[in-house]
């Protein structure tokens, strides 16, 4: 059974239709890349999946692990194993990174009917996972993302991902603003978390990330629609030719 299934999804923000009928199926273990130019609706898609309330689904359905995702509040989605790595991770003054992560992990465990994690076990877990993205341990005690560099914020997102072990991870432009070394670290981290039971949706503007995280499927999103799907070759073609040739096509099709 598919882990995530979008059927004819239409989404509006403040009365403007951003997504205009998306169909997408993600099976367990698959990595999907969603590419598109600025303003194509990529981040809207990520936001709707994570449960941001200012987005209105005007038509269509989203099924996740056999449930109607749109019926679930953001925190329930997270507890059911859906994770969004933010394009702009938020600074939370006064809340330490570990405190936050432990509260999140315990909320997820409690939802599953498991006991809260013991302080020592949590520390051990955190020490292990922090290595996944080579994050400096000093950032664990600091307030969440406060004073972190851009690269540290993105790595911290992947660190959270590693600790929370979601079934579906959506990475919203995690590659933006990263230099090549940081990009490799993030990609290595994600690759180490690939698992037959875990799926990824990578949202990106650039093909570059996909050199390091090789997707099973690539979808091109333009003006709120998936105009083309393929494999990694499609991403390489986009790198060579840009998005323009795809943008023109639907118009030509319409006039034909």
């Amino acid at each position, binding site marked *: 059974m598919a882990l995530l299934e979008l059927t004819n999804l239409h989404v509006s923000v403040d009365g403007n239709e951003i997504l205009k009928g998306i169909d997408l199926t993600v099976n367990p273990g698959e990595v999907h890349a969603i590419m598109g130019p600025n303003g194509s609706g990529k981040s809207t898609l990520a936001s709707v999946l994570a449960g941001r309330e200012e987005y209105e689904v005007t038509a269509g359905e989203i099924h996740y692990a056999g449930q109607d995702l749109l019926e679930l509040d953001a925190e329930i989605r997270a507890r059911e194993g859906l994770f969004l790595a933010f394009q702009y991770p938020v*600074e939370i003054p006064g809340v330490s990174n570990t405190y936050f992560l432990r509260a999140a992990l315990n*909320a997820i465990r409690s939802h599953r009917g498991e006991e809260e994690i013991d302080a020592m076990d949590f520390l051990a877990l955190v020490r292990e996972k922090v290595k996944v993205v080579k994050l400096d341990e000093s950032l664990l005690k600091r307030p969440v993302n406060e004073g972190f560099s851009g690269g540290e914020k993105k790595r911290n997102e992947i660190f959270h991902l590693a600790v929370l072990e979601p079934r579906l991870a959506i990475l919203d432009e995690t590659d933006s603003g990263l230099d090549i070394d940081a990009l490799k670290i993030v990609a290595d981290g994600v690759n180490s978390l690939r698992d037959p039971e875990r799926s990824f949706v990578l949202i990106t503007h650039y093909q570059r990330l996909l050199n390091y995280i090789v997707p099973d499927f690539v979808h091109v999103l333009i003006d709120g629609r998936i105009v083309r799907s393929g494999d990694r070759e499609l991403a390489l073609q986009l790198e060579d030719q840009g998005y323009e040739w795809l943008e023109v096509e639907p118009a030509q099709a319409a006039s034909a």
Partner: protein
Amino acid sequence: MTQASTDTGAFASALDAVAGLPAPELLQDLRTRGRESFATLGLPNRRQEDWRFTGLKGIEGEVFASPAAVAPRIDVTPWRVSNARLLVFVDGIFAPDISEIGDLPDGVVVSNLVLGATSGSEAVAQHLGSLAPLEEHPFAALNSALIADGAFIHVPAGMELDRPIQLVFISGSGGRATLSAPRILIVAENGSRATVLEQHVGDSASLSCPVSEIVIGEGAVLNHLIVQEENLSAHHLAVREMKLAADSRYSAQSISLGGALARTDIGVVLDGERAEASLDGLYLGDGSQQANTHLTVRHASPNCNSHQLYKGILAGRAKAVFNGRIIVDQDAQKTDAKQSNRNLLLSDDAVVNSNPQLEIFADDVRCTHGSTVGQLDEEAVFYLRSRGIGHDEAIQLLTLAFAGEILERVPVIELRDRLERVVAARLAAIADPEGKK
């Protein structure tokens, strides 16, 4: 004048009852001066600029009970800080049976004021009534008129006290709506060092009007924590005045949680070069609580620093006032004064009046002030929720973090931990008033 005498009327029985209590001459003199002044001033009203935002309806015309002459035994374990020297006052009356002062180093006085005055302490004679604005402030006058006893701390020159001194003022003992006038005199001589923890607690609709006078000598360091957790129907009107000599340092954390109305008027005079005052505060209001802070810092000498950070969390229909005034005298060059007031509104009906004021008469100074009033960052709430933390917990976590910036400055860990729990519990109650969870 007729108006004023009517005002005194409601308090007449309490004033008469206190006048009948035996007291050392110093205290009796203060009572007389206080009573005369209060008869002239009367209770303030909203037509007075300083009292424009302070609603005194809850005490106007009310008749409050007088303190019991002998303080009853009350279990103080909920507030007890384990290694502190403890003085307990019930409705302003010293309760020796439940106090634990312990052996003191030579020359150090930690006692009740009556003992300080009768033992002929120079410090009491010199400083009691020297700083409190008895002639101008109605509640400083009322406190003085009602003075029965108080706390007296005298740290001699060069003495460093490592154990904190804890003053617990319990108002409204036995559920009675009492009128009490807690009084504090702290004299920290040159080069001394001490930590004072002052707590106001209570369980009835009482009226408490504490007055503190704090004299800090050259190079002395005084840490002062003030926690106000009176009953939610109580009225608490406090006046705190202090004077800092050269090279001294005073840091205060003022935590205001209780009271239907809690107002504190603070006056700080930086009276010697390089004196430093850090004045931080946190006020929390819910329901129809009012929390008012009127803070005046006067830089009277050059090269002094004053830093203020006051944070407020208001829910329900709570109202808060922050009046922060910084005065820089003409010869107080190289003054460095910072003032910041930040408020978090958790409901549409909560109101904050924040009025920072600078009055600068010197030309080579650095003064900054700012105030903010806002809601929680929606993006931060969503970020927490997207990681699995529930909506209400996310709001509590972020609000507690906002308060944490002040609470983490509380110097005694045991008390800091307790305050964090108390504030967390209050925030949980605000988030879930019916106790559904």
